[in-house]
């Protein structure tokens, strides 16, 4: 069964026909070729696929594309303003909050929601806000620093 869907992705209107079973993550990666959103697991835990739908972080591997009909979707590709990094992206660079980069897009998208909720998040806020994102490289230490700095920069 196919569905004609439309949504706004990174500020751009897109329309497509998708199967019922097409996941948002497949739609982004395969249809739109927005391959910054990654897939790291199949049990909805690793968070590498995190994007924002209508301003909230979601795991795009656990959402059907058809559920996003009419929604506003923001992916990692939509954050920077031209070559100017978003403050959270810049904070990850400044604080070495990434290594292999695979979890990074999802981590940054989750960090944005942490910052949205609190411009001065505590360690506990960050731990809780990033509980759905696995990073195997950084040991999280620098991610804490990056999220704090990013949140502060976003708040100011």
């Amino acid at each position, binding site marked *: 069964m196919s569905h004609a869907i439309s949504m706004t992705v990174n500020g751009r209107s897109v329309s497509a026909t998708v199967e019922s*079973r097409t*996941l948002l993550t497949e739609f982004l990666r395969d249809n739109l070729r927005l391959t910054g959103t990654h897939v790291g697991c199949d049990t909805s835990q690793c968070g590498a696929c995190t994007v924002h739908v209508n301003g909230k972080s979601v795991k795009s591997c656990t959402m059907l594309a058809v559920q996003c009909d009419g929604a506003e979707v923001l992916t990692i590709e939509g954050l920077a303003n031209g070559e100017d990094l978003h403050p959270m992206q810049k904070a990850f660079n400044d604080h070495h909050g990434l290594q292999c980069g695979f979890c990074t897009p999802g981590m940054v998208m989750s960090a944005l929601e942490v910052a949205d909720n609190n411009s001065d998040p505590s360690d506990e806020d960050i731990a809780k806000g990033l509980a*759905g994102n696995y990073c195997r490289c950084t040991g999280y230490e620098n991610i804490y620093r990056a999220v704090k700095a990013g949140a502060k920069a976003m708040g100011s």
Partner: protein
Amino acid sequence: MYNFDYEKAASADDAVKAAGGSDDVMFLAGGMTLIPTLKLRLTQPEKVVDVGGIGDMKGISVSGDTVTIGAATTHADVAGSDDVKKAIPALAKLASLIGDQQVRNRGTIGGSIANADPAADYPAAVVGLGATVKTNKREIAGDDFFTAMFETALEPGELITSVSFPVPEKADYQKLANPASGYAMVGVMVAKTKDGVRVGVTGAGPSAFRASAIEDALGSDFSSDAAKGVTMSSDDLNNDLHATAEYRASCISTLAARAVKAIG
């Protein structure tokens, strides 16, 4: 994933009609359990009816001594609701401990309790606070809702529309999370109500239940020592890699004691 038909329902009635009482049709709310299950090809519904967009099934209202939460209300909305935090802070706390932020942004109370995962958090509140589950056809008492592992009193095609929680005098929820999945290995809701103490337990058994031994102990002495002094039986409790039945039994008393302490 196998393919399936998808229909987005505009109202609860539409949803029920679309489901037609069939076993091969599944309701999709937040999809936090259904979609992973579909992805792993563990279930093959003919049709999925999306109830996540039904406005009447979303939202939180407080009237008198009751907090009513629409079935399609997300965990994040419950966790962040000032009304819930004021009326039943333990319920907001419980919702804030479910899964992770992304799951809380999508998962719904109706979906959670309809799925009746033995390790889900909400069942502890449904049982522990003595909730009433409202469906498209009737009201079901919280105590009667969970019948067995992944089984509820719901009939095929029956749709939860809201869940009502009576406001307790005081309550607290304590959780020991599975180190891998984050689900509750043991979750305990302790509520002091005008009708006595209720202790709802999730994660420990095949489905949520009331720990009557602890309720009795707390009924006569509402102290953390009283809760901790209760030796729960491990019979019929779950046993897995991360928690044996004996461990779960012990943790029920410990978490109940922590809840009592938190209540003060």
